[in-house]
């Protein structure tokens, strides 16, 4: 499975290759490295579309904050998508597919978190996770 951003890479320079996606490899998106073996123009368009990182600010509105159950719901939603999903609180970045990492955010009610999504189904997962936050984790996300 595609495992998401790797720590240490500049965020703006992240991309993963259609060639290597099955091996869960994240590569820096320097323009000269984009072609990666395939010269088919369609591949390059696909790569370029996946280089886009979609960002949205989400707010914890439920009074108990981002405790175990909300983190579990976020992780379950993120795991159902191929795209990488990162939730950040300041310098603390959590892979949203990992319950343990999400719990390290310790986000109380009123906390703003940055949601960053990249991948082929980025918009779907962006909407699904945003919906979880906006309903205070009280109901299942809307079917997309």
């Amino acid at each position: 499975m595609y495992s998401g951003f790797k720590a240490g890479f500049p965020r703006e320079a992240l991309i993963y290759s259609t060639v290597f996606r099955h091996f869960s490899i994240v590569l820096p998106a320097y323009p000269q490295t984009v072609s990666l073996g395939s010269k088919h123009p369609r591949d390059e368009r696909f790569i370029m579309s996946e280089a886009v990182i979609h960002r949205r600010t989400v707010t914890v509105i439920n009074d108990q904050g981002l405790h175990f159950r909300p983190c579990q719901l976020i992780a379950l939603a993120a795991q159902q998508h191929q795209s990488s999903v990162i939730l950040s609180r300041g310098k603390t970045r959590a892979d949203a597919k990992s319950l343990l990492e999400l719990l390290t955010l310790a986000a109380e009610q009123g906390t703003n978190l940055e949601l960053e999504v990249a991948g082929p189904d980025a918009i779907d997962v962006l909407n699904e996770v945003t919906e979880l936050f906006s309903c205070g984790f009280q109901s299942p996300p809307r079917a997309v």
Partner: protein
Amino acid sequence: MKLCDFVVPGAIVPELPAGTKESAIRAMVASLQKAGSIKAEDEENIVAAILKREELGSTGIGRGVAVPHTKHGSTDKLIAAIALAKEGVDFASLDGEPVYIIFLLVSPPDRPGDHLRGLENISRHLRNDHFCKFLRQSKTSEDIWELLTEADNNEI
């Protein structure tokens, strides 16, 4: 907040008898009661609350670890018990694997921030493979307390 701020030294169970999720939770709540952190008359109620929470979804988070918990009015501060189960306990974990390390948390309902910081603290250390490995290798309460102290000081 550090582990040693909320783990009750008298509620460390280095070797749980083989048993079920319920028997493990009961033994850990009993250790909190024996340590004087909760009253005897609240013990059964706390066990029931933790088991009810487990019905919503297992707190077995994978990596052989579970974090059963509840918010309960009988305590005015966050408290935790730790237990090791050498034989493994079936916690209906997300990854289907048995649980060998259990952190049990009881926190006051009106202080959600403390509960979140407790979970954050435990999760941060559980991400460390060395911490999990050393914890599972611990034989006595003293070993475990020493390990928690080292973890708090970022010495692992």
